[in-house]
């Protein structure tokens, strides 16, 4: 026997002023199953909640409708209230008579009529509600950090310091990431590696942190608290347990002239290498695509011969390691745009046109030129360098509409570094707008102009082309309104920051969403900026959007805090309004499967009675840990075997019927 109670809130005068609450309550009394209806000034306040609880006891109510503000506001409040009074929290529905009624319709009779209709819909729905139970999910208290740049390092350290085990998966030979490639950092001009290296050492030595470098994520199964991750540990050809990182091998390797990606291909490395001298782990890897041993059937073996600890093992193979984690922090960082779509700027065509990251390596004392700025074409010291801002950013026409955020500042820094290292060189910066939102940033920019005499030209570069032994940079000085050409020895393009090329593919593996630029999407742009839409997966650093180092570090710590918060609970509570399968109706067509964004639907074999026989057949089943309750599966299912609890077809149809009356 369904016994529904209806509670209409005045919300002070917020509702009562334009809705005749008494009339609404009266009309509710005539609805099927309604045995009690009343109004109150503030239903969400303690006395209001008590009123509901009392009525539940007094009238033996087993279902409740509260006509009040938006369910986004107080659905949880009222669910808890009825639960305390012994009614399943999912047997309560909210009729939104404030946001959808009193606040948007001034005419009282009209508002009252609509409020009554909304209450009738809620009553019709609640009559078809069934009790739902939230599940409890165990938590594996180990975290996975994907990416070993400054974001990953920071997140890993914070989690490990709270006493939980962390695994860092890093694609390259060493952790360190982009920050390791930088020379100085703005606005303080302190040395990037000087502040990064100690942190790298910390993660390298931390007892709770395991670094899987030269590794990639192969697949992610499972759900919040219970991820099962397969990590591909690429074959390094070096036994890490034996190697001491003495450097004999890489110093003696006869293949020397391979482009060093750490140096943005401006320098060289051998076939057996570490990314850079301070690499963590300090264990080299063999680049099999270029190693003589692998290219010429086991010839060479120099490294093997010189290795004092016999750490070289050519027979090592890729290993797939399966591990369980409770939480994942995505910190995969960024790359700079290739700018292939901009032939007019000549990146890749003219050697002296480079990107900002290249320039970092050229200024860095650990770089290929040992910190002497030389232009790539002929090694000459440049006397005129043009910095081009927004190179690939803020250009909807060619597919990237966003601002890369860090370029204004790092270009100012690079112009300053140029002027410091080559005082007689002129720095020109072509810009559209200068964005220096950050502590001490504007001051830094002013210093570049005032102290270092950097020439800022407001205009976007239209074309770069070679003439004699220099480049000509053409554009409009929009403040002059005249065409200008700058003769430059080098052009540095502040190439757009974009997610790693495989970010979308990785996101699909992990099951998180990404935006059209392939940056990973946060759950809420303001209120949940470090969580992804998938429970248990958190975001840190440039994989979520362009940002500078302090912001990255802050986000990484925030993500770590979220992980630690999760690990501090005994168990996680799963959503109750999830999909479930009516196995008798399910025919196993699996049309529901591809539409599930969370890969929550799996086949399941069931046994069934058919007449006298027992038959086996395959039906869909929902993993309640993965399901987030969107209901797309329920619509894809042609027979309605898939249902979304809390929003079943019956409930929605009942509402439709009611609002149409």
């Amino acid at each position: 026997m369904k016994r529904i109670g209806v509670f209409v809130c005045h919300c002070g005068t917020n509702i009562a002023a334009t809705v005749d609450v008494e009339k609404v309550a009266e009309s509710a009394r005539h609805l099927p199953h309604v045995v009690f209806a009343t109004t109150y000034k503030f239903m969400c306040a303690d006395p209001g909640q008590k009123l509901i609880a009392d009525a539940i006891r007094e009238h033996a109510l087993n279902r409740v409708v509260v006509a009040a503000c938006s369910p986004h506001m107080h659905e949880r409040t009222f669910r808890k209230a009825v639960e305390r009074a012994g009614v399943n929290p999912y047997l309560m529905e909210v009729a939104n008579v404030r946001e959808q009624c009193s606040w948007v319709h001034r005419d009282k009779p009209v508002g009252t009529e609509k409020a009554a209709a909304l209450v009738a819909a809620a009553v019709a729905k609640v009559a078809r509600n069934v009790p739902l139970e939230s599940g409890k999910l165990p938590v594996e208290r180990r975290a996975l950090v994907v990416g070993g740049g400054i974001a990953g390092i920071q997140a890993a350290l914070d989690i490990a310091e709270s006493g939980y085990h962390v695994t860092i998966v890093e694609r390259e030979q060493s952790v360190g990431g982009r920050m390791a490639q930088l020379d100085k950092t703005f606005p303080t001009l302190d040395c990037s590696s000087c502040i990064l290296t100690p942190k790298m050492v910390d993660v390298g030595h931390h007892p709770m942190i395991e670094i899987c470098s030269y590794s990639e994520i192969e697949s992610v199964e499972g759900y919040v608290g219970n991820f099962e991750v397969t990590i591909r540990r690429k074959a390094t050809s070096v036994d890490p347990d034996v190697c001491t990182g003495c450097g004999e091998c890489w110093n003696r390797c006869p293949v020397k002239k391979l482009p060093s990606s750490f140096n943005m291909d401006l320098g060289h490395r051998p076939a057996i290498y570490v990314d850079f001298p301070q690499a963590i782990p300090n264990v080299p890897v063999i680049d099999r695509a270029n190693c003589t041993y692998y290219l010429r059937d086991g010839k060479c073996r120099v490294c093997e011969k010189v290795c004092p600890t016999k750490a070289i093992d050519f027979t090592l193979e890729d290993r797939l390691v399966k591990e369980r984690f409770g939480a994942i922090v995505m910190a995969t960082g960024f790359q700079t745009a290739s700018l292939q779509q901009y032939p007019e700027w000549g990146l890749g065509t003219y050697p002296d046109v480079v990107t900002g990251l290249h320039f970092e390596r050229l200024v860095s004392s650990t770089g290929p030129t040992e910190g002497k700025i030389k232009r790539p074409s002929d090694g000459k010291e440049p006397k005129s360098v043009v910095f081009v801002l927004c190179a690939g950013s803020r250009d909807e026409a060619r597919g990237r509409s966003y601002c890369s955020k860090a370029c204004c500042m790092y270009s100012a820094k690079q112009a300053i570094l140029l002027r410091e290292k080559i005082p007689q060189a002129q720095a020109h910066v072509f810009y559209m707008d200068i964005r220096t939102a950050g502590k001490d940033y504007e001051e830094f920019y002013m210093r570049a102009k005032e102290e270092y005499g950097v020439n800022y030209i407001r205009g976007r570069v239209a074309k770069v082309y070679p003439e004699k032994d220099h480049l000509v940079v053409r554009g409009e000085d929009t403040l002059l309104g005249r065409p200008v050409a700058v003769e430059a020895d080098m052009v540095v393009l502040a190439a757009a920051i974009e997610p790693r090329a495989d970010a979308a593919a990785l996101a699909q593996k992990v099951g998180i969403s990404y935006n059209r630029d392939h940056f990973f999407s946060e759950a809420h742009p303001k209120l949940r900026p470090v969580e992804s839409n998938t429970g248990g997966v958190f975001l840190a650093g440039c994989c979520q959007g362009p940002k500078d180092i302090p912001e990255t570090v802050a986000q990484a710590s925030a993500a770590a805090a979220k992980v630690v918060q999760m690990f501090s609970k005994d168990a996680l509570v799963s959503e109750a309004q999830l999909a479930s399968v009516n196995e008798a109706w399910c025919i196993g067509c699996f049309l529901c499967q591809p539409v599930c964004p969370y890969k929550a639907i799996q086949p399941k074999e069931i046994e069934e009675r058919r007449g006298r026989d027992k038959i086996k057949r395959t039906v869909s089943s929902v993993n309640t840990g993965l399901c987030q309750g969107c209901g797309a599966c329920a619509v894809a299912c042609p027979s309605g075997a898939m249902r979304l609890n809390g929003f079943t077809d019956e409930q929605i149809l009942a509402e439709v019927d009611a609002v149409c009356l």
Partner: protein
Amino acid sequence: MAEKLVTSEGLFTMVEKLLGRAQVTAPREENGIAVFGPVNSAGQVELDGPLPVIPEKSVVFPQSETLLRMDLGGEVPKVEAVEPEGEQVILGVRPCGLQAFARLDRVFLEGAFVDPQYRRRRDHTLIIALTCPTVKRSCFCRAFGYGPSDGSGADLQLTRLPGGSFHLETLTERGGEFVAEMEKEGIAGLTDAGAEAGSAARAEKARVERLAERSAAAVSTEGVVEGLDGMYDDPYWAQLAERCISCGICTYLCPTCHCFDICEKARGPEAERYRCWDTCLFSNYTLMAGGANPRPTVRERLRNRLYHKLNFFNHRYGEFLCVGCGRCVEHCPTNIDIRKVMAKAAARSRAQGVSVNG
């Protein structure tokens, strides 16, 4: 009774006149298909077409009809019965349709309970029969002891004459009244039939009877009931059911099938109770509230239908519930043929040596 001659134009005018005072149902053509359905203008009537797909029964037993209206909003619920209204004329009923009406009458009107809805409709329906202009291969009326010119059960009977006019025979008093009324209104082209027209009509009837004769050899009812008596658990039904797709074509097109379901619809405090056709071939037909189904598979459902047509009804009313119109034969998507079932049953009874008379 009286015999008249009416030209096509005369008939047209008659229908036009009728339209003002009654709901007229007649054969129409829709998208290349002949159907019995309500007509709004005489031009829609198509008497020369084949046997209409939708049978005549819908005139007295509509696919759905409201029985009760309710208002549950007040202190005391209000309930009122809904009675069918108005006069109906059904034009162009074939002899098989007339036979079907007779069967339906037995179901709905005989015995302790007389169905009020059916009674009202039946009483207010004038039936104008039509001698079949041709006989299809799927027709097997002869097996049931009547022929394509048999007008019994109609108020009036039309027979298309070679010249294009119609011979109109008055068969009941009501039919007579109708003709008299028409004559009073002065229908041009409605005249007394001379001897010539009378004999032309008899010749036409004899012609179609001869055409029907062709099926007599192929289909017979002899031994069907008896054969089926012993065949209930025969593997034959499973074989037949293998092919059946369990659609409702045969039952809904059948002029004698008369099963219905009673449903309600509510819109807020107001509600209606109605009945609508149902078919024993649908699994829902016997589905019970708890999920149990006494006829769980097509085998049981198809068998039930065929037994109802060819055996059960005989045991209760002494005649077949099949009238040999051939609609199910012609329209079955998988060519299930009731005539073959009859032959099978007959063969079984012969094999068992059951005496037809015993």
